[in-house]
């Protein structure tokens, strides 16, 4: 089977080679017969010149047609405050650069046709024109300045410190999944240290820190609408990158260097479902920094709820401590001083269930 393939391949290659040699010979002979090898520009020059505007038409036409026809496919719904602004910048830039693109290409293909070689003509000796050159240095410079400035304002807003009332949620990337951790009732994420990581405590949370006791770690990222969310992003093995395409959010997850990104979601999952008429719509988080074998599969489901729904959901979540009581009684977790903390008394005793863990 493999051998027949090889023989067929070799046979095909030889065939193609023979064809090419024949074509080469024929072209050479015809050129000599016509004397076009002596001419500055043979009939091919006309053909090549003509192909230029034809190519240009097909090219620009094709782009406009496809951009129009498949708009629904590549237009990704936007569901965050700042995303609306960056999309706007995107389309403004598209307008400006699109104009330049079309004009320069029309000139390029038109000139190629219009100024094709002729024995009778002589080209214009036109080595420079300072005014013209100044003009096309300054005009793009101004256009770019406008683009830069509008970009700068948006960028500064996006990257400003997170508002005080933002909900801090931790996102941790590892080969090959995402973990999320919520601060619980105290609104504060507990300390962590990578040296505390083990099979169960995959975040390396330091349970000697009181703030950690009410942290919970659900299997998907759930956030309320119209509320500032501050993602505290980190990685525990190699680089990853948090990508929330619908929210126009992207930020690398770096081992040893926590990063963050804050944003406000503007549409609940249900709202997008009815908007796109797709009852199965789900927000997703992807990884956009190459991280190894499973890079393409680092998916996390994301759900946006109304504020009320979110409150309800959050109050139903069990703390990690509660869910992993064995860890503290039998596992590695014995090293933490939960008993002491429990004695000091916690406000939300039954939820924390520290006592239960003992």
């Amino acid at each position, binding site marked *: 089977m493999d051998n027949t393939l090889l023989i067929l391949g070799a046979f095909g290659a030889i065939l193609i080679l023979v064809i090419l040699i024949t074509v080469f010979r024929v072209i050479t002979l015809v050129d000599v017969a016509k004397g076009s090898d002596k001419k500055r520009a043979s009939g091919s020059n006309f053909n090549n010149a003509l192909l230029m505007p034809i190519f240009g038409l097909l090219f620009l036409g094709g782009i406009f047609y496809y951009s129009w026809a498949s708009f629904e496919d590549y237009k990704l719904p936007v569901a965050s405050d700042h995303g609306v602004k960056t999309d706007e910048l995107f389309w403004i830039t598209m307008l400006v650069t699109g104009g330049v693109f079309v004009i320069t290409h029309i*000139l390029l293909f038109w000139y190629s046709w219009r100024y094709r*070689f002729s024995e009778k003509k002589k080209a214009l000796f036109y080595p420079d024109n300072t005014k013209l050159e100044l003009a096309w240095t300054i005009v793009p410079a101004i256009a770019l300045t406008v683009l830069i400035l509008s970009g700068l304002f948006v960028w500064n807003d996006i990257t400003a410190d997170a508002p005080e009332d933002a909900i801090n949620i931790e996102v941790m990337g590892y080969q090959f999944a995402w973990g999320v951790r919520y601060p619980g009732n105290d609104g504060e994420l507990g300390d962590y240290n990578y040296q505390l990581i083990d099979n169960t405590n995959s975040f390396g949370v330091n349970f000697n820190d009181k703030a950690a006791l009410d942290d919970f770690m659900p299997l998907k990222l759930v956030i309320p609408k119209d509320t500032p969310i501050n993602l505290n992003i980190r990685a525990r093995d190699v680089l990853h990158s948090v990508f929330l395409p619908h929210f126009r959010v992207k930020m690398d997850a770096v081992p040893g260097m926590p990063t963050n990104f804050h944003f406000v979601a503007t549409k609940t999952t249900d709202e997008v479902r009815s908007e796109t008429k797709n009852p199965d719509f789900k927000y997703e988080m*992807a990884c*956009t920094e190459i991280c190894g074998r499973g890079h393409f599969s680092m998916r996390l489901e994301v759900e946006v709820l109304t504020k009320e729904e979110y409150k309800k959901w959050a109050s139903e979540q069990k703390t990690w401590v509660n869910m992993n009581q064995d860890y503290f009684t039998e596992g590695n977790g014995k090293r933490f001083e939960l008993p002491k903390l429990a004695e000091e008394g916690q406000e939300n005793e039954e939820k924390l269930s520290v006592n239960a863990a003992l």
Partner: protein
Amino acid sequence: MSEIKTQNVHIDSHEEHHDDHAHHETFISKYIFTTDHKMIGKQFLMTGIFWALIGGALSLIFRIQLGFPEADISWMRPMLGEWITPEGRLDPEFYLALVTMHGTIMVFFVLTAGLSGTFSNFLIPLQIGARDMASGFMNMLSYWFFFASSVVMFSSLFIETGPAAGGWVVYPPLSALEQAIPGSGLGMTMWLVAMALFIVSTLLGGINYITTVINLRTEGMSFSRLPLTIWAFFITAVIGLLSFPVLFAAALLLIFDRSFGTAFYLSDIYIGGEALPQQGGSPVLYQHLFWFLGHPEVYIVIMPAFGITSEVISTNARKPIFGYRAMVGSLLGIAFLSFIVWAHHMFVSGMDPFLGSVFMLLTLVIAVPSAVKVFNYLTTLWKGNIVFTPGMLFSIGLVSLFISGGLTGIFLGNSAIDIQLHDTYFVVAHFHLVMGSAAFFGMMAGVYHWFPKMFGRMINAKLGYVHFWLTFAGVYLVFFPMHYIGIAGFPRRYYTWSSFETFSNIFQDLNAFVTIAAIITFAAQFIFLFNFFYSIYRGRRAPQNPWHSNTLEWTTPIEPGHGNWPGAIPTVYRWPYDYSKPGAADDYIPQTVPYSETPESNTDFENELAALEKESGVEEVDETKE
């Protein structure tokens, strides 16, 4: 004055050299350990072509995966062995290795060594009027270091754990930790060794190009009379000299981190069930170092292509290049700016957002000189008398590709927009058009244009036209659709997108289309390959100056020997772009024609120069013409 004297001394000593060499030139000294710049240039070209085929073939394998993820590709097993899973699918790790090696090979081995190495070597002495490079021996070393580097990189494709697989940028910790991906074991070690050798090769070559251009220009060849090719090669070499050592340092520190337990780039890592002891390093540091080379590198790739295009467009539009000074100025401007925009690759790497603002500003500034170049090319075509040689077609193609790809840079350079586009297929579209395809077209333009000088024969033009049109349509069909895929958010370096609902059910047909276009475009390159090799032996004999060009290389014998000019080196009297000068009988005046011989076409200022020529008695004047 003293410069000219040393020049003469050099010429004399070389001529003697030349003579007694010619007699006992063996196969080895002529084709293998040669110190002749022309042969070294051809060596770089042949090796570059070899690498282009490998790099292209690798890309077809992963394109098949992306276009037809469900296809049974067991038929590749004789070639890829264990990298095809028992179910007949591509192994996801090998997918990453393919992407990594494709990028590394194309950027460094094809578009840096294959392009700069070929044309800087071949053209610098010929176009500035020198017998050879400043140091033929170093030049030979430069090739053989490149060869050694190639051997190591090529071997790494066949080792059991696979070649490096962390992307062509090889960011640590992924590239530092074998536990993270098997390719980061021996494969990565070989990658680093190969790159170290490669950098040595580049530096040896670069020092030579710079020295040669500064010191060995023939009489009259002032900097303001240099062809734009030489300007481009010269500036490229300077950029390389300043940036490659930084990559060397980055690689060296990575070697330390990998093998000697240091922590330049590593910190707080838990992997394979254990917490590593390294603390305090920063993966972001590596990114800064890498892109400090990486961004200049992309200009190292495109600038020689600019140089070639300028030369070819001017020659074949039969017009002086428009705005010679602006063309040189924009090259210098781009060169300078290319060193201070690197962090635009890192807007969302976690670096200080304020730095992001600064780099956004600088990045968009670099678009200005790039725009100037495009406008100048267009104006050079305007009212020209255009001869469409294959070289000219590829040059026009370059201009188009550079516009298309350059404009998307303006999206990416805006950090606010880049948040969404970073590491999506939009970036892939951007750099394959502006760098990959444009530089490839520049390289092809150069090969077609200087083929007669390289091999003394003409390459078949008609096959060249077919090659051009198929390739031009092909690269657009391959890379333009990637914009849409990128705007839809598809991340790059993904083995498949089917794990995500957001990226499923759309564009699978478009991806299949891209794959088919890629296969056809790749196949079209065999027309070129055939034409190239067949014409070396069977092409029509080249005339002395096939394109009616002004530059010095066309004053050498049709097949120049070692030393380039049999007699004295010609003197240069004018710039290289006197095409279609009003008053002149022909539509070109070579650089070797003194102003005193062309009173009919001289400007007032040039008449003054002609008088100076007379005074110094360099050349007898044809009085009758006056």
